[in-house]
């Protein structure tokens, strides 16, 4: 009986691993097979001439370019908003916060990290309703609002990775500063931060990836299907993940479906590259510590 159970567990571990391996392999090869043939000028710019489309002189219809630009602006803006606050908070929690204060703050940040992205979007939506009821009757969802909500979404990741990168430094590093007569601030900025730089950077890259793939937040805060290139901070915009969602639900012609496959592949490559480089940064960091240790 016991032996049978063991054999069952053994078999299950193989089945589970191979099964998941197969499913992910199937998913990737399916996307590659359907998406690769569609990659080309047509996918990105439709009928419009490429150069003029890039500089926004010609409006691009039914193609990827506006969504690419939208996602780029969105991610840049969200990162700009979140990085200074996130890294500062991470530094404070790792190096300055008194113990009991730190516990309360960390708990609140953990709660923020666990909040579903749709609730973050709803928060942005509620904020607009609030503005409409109070100061600005014609406030509307926009690029800036979406970026701000995305910034809230990635903020906890930035905080945690910064904090973890600083706290994982060996104690010798923490002692270098005081032994040379540095103040705590000097130690942090001249010794600890440079040493933890790669870890922090990998956190930033990781959160860019998160911001680029999230769909639920922007759905409630201003993305639409045919906005064209984003018209400023208070305009509507397009984005890659939303385009995939929209086309999967509403495609009318085989050409649109092809374009959806292409979009999915492009987004997958984008986030794949971001996650890959974050992982690589993290690995080189670990390698460096192991050599030193």
């Amino acid at each position: 009986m016991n032996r049978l159970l063991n054999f069952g567990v053994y078999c299950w571990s193989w089945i589970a691993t191979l099964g998941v391996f197969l499913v992910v392999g199937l998913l990737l090869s399916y996307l590659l097979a359907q998406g690769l043939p569609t990659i080309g000028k047509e996918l990105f710019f439709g009928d419009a001439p490429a150069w003029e489309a890039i500089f926004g002189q010609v409006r691009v219809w039914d193609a990827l370019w506006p969504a690419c630009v939208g996602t780029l602006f969105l991610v840049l803006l969200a990162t700009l908003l979140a990085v200074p606050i996130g890294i500062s908070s991470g530094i404070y929690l790792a190096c300055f916060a008194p113990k009991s204060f730190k516990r309360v703050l960390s708990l609140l940040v953990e709660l923020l990290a666990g909040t579903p992205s749709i609730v973050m979007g709803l928060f942005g939506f509620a904020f607009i309703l609030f503005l409409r009821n109070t100061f600005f009757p014609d406030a509307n969802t926009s690029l800036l609002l979406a970026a701000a909500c995305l910034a809230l979404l990635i903020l906890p990741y930035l905080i945690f990775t910064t904090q973890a990168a600083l706290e994982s430094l060996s104690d010798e590093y923490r002692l270098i500063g005081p032994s040379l007569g540095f103040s705590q601030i000097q130690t942090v900025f001249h010794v600890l931060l440079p040493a933890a730089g790669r870890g922090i950077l990998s956190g930033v890259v990781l959160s860019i990836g998160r911001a680029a793939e999230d769909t639920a937040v922007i759905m409630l805060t201003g993305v639409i299907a045919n906005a064209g290139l984003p018209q400023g901070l208070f305009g509507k915009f397009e984005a890659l993940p939303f385009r995939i969602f929209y086309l999967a639900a509403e495609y009318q012609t085989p050409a649109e479906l092809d374009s959806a496959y292409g979009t999915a592949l492009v987004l997958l490559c984008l986030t794949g590259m971001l996650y890959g480089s974050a992982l690589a940064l993290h690995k080189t960091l670990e390698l460096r510590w192991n050599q030193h240790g």
Partner: protein
Amino acid sequence: MSKYVETLLKYATVFSALIVLVLFGFLTYFTLPLFAEGQITELFSLHWRPFHGEFGILPMIAGTLALAISALLIAYPLGLGICLFVHGLGPRWLARPILLLIHGMTGIPTVVYGFVAVFLLVPLLRNNFSHGSGFSLLAASLTLSILILPTIVLLINSQLEQIVPKLRLTTTALGISRIHELTRISLPAASYGLLAAAILGFGRAVGDTLIALMVAGNAAQIPGSAFDSIRTLTAHIALVVATDSQSTTYHSLFACGLILFLTTASVNLLLHRIKHRACRETNYE
């Protein structure tokens, strides 16, 4: 000078920490009118028919629970199997590539999972089972289980990584087989990790929007079978914001948001407690 820098860092942190409270405040503020107008009982009714003035969200709560639990029931055993594979039941040279693959899976966008499920899994279900359109609880829970799998595997794995190397020399010297060591010693020792993985997996499953929205069919009904179309709280919020613009429906929307928020917040508080306890116990040893 340095005092200013520290103060600045402190304010940034307080700001980050306060956001979640502001968020909670906003959701509550917009849900309050429901209490005031006595619509709170209507909220917990079985029918979502906004044009008849019925705003029951019970079907969505049931849908969310059904989806999250079934996805967890699929993903958890798979995740456990993979962890055992990595920690000794499979060949050693495969352990690192498998973990790398699982890490990589966290980088695949949710919308891509949903997209592939719509065009690969849903037709498969539609053609093999003659129940409706294929957009169903089953399709969504299968897809969602793949999404939450890495969360579960990585958490259990991080716990086992701390336990297994310490035990391996002893158990090998005692002649205990690999499988005995894992199932009788390592896994029981990792019980906090196992529990935390289940809770975190559940939290992620509850919070996911896109897969439910794309694959589950979105009919506001209590699911009767795995082939029924369901609507989750998350998908409900997305759908109502996209279609309705009457302010009466919005209040029930914020109630959905509040329920979601409270669910994930309690999940995280629970995790926090577990982690705290686990830390304390390992320190006593």
